[in-house]
């Protein structure tokens, strides 16, 4: 099971009590070059995971221990003027969804916001480093 699938599963659980929001597993999530999350407000979209592999240790007998960094972005757009009262809780739940991924050296999540035409877009980034 991919980390993206795990994240989607945990987000689904975490927002189950927040009925104003939903999550889509759809890929890709754009229509005519326009991201669907800007059309479907309050719906969370999770992008395909990106993976980078770097050498953590190398040894004289050509042994190599690699570390793998998996990055997943998620998007949520809401009406900037009429946000639901539980938006902060939902955002917090999205951030802690990273805890579903275990066996990591490092696990981080953060988000940025951008406002355009009365829509505020939350862009979440999850990073997982495994060895």
């Amino acid at each position, binding site marked *: 099971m991919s980390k993206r699938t795990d994240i989607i599963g945990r987000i689904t659980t975490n927002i189950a009590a927040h009925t104003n929001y939903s999550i889509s597993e759809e890929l890709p999530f754009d229509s005519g070059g326009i991201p669907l999350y800007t059309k479907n407000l309050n719906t969370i979209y999770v992008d395909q995971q990106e993976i980078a592999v770097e050498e*953590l*240790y*190398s040894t*004289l007998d050509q*042994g190599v221990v690699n570390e793998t960094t998996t990055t997943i972005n998620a998007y949520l757009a809401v009406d900037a003027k009429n946000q639901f009262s539980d938006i902060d809780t939902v955002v917090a739940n999205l951030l802690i969804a990273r805890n579903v991924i275990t066996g990591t*050296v*490092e696990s981080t999540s953060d988000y940025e916001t951008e406002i355009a035409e009365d829509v505020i877009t939350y862009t979440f980034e999850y990073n997982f480093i495994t*060895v």
Partner: protein
Amino acid sequence: MAVINVTSGNQAILTLGSNAALAVPGNAGGLVVPFVQDITINATPGTVRYSTLDSTSSSAFTTVNENSVSLNILVDETVMFGDDSGNVNTVIDRGLFRTSTDKTEINFSVLVTGTGTTGDIYIAGKGFIGGLAPTASIDGAVWLSPVELICNGELTQTVES
């Protein structure tokens, strides 16, 4: 003249054995220590310095050599803790950790060049395993440990024939 490139994976190989023959590079019964990050051969003559009234600089004479081999490894479970197979090479049987705590003298060789074939140079000696300090951290992700081979006697340089 040429520098010795160690990136091919068949130089700087440490082989351990419970006797000198087992520790010769290429001996199938030897324990080749895997996952060595770096290795240092210390061949150091002991010295005593003294001063005399007729000289503006100090003089020295040598005493005994103090030799050792130090390295850092990623810990391999079988090599560190042994396979308890009853192998005639007791370093394989007992592993580095118990060979160290047992204070068992072992033989070793460090292959400097090549793969243990004709013309290749290796340094050999005997001594005790010390300096084990396995360390684990979440950042490091794997167990790491320094190792020191404290030599009992002289190091010898051998050219494979």
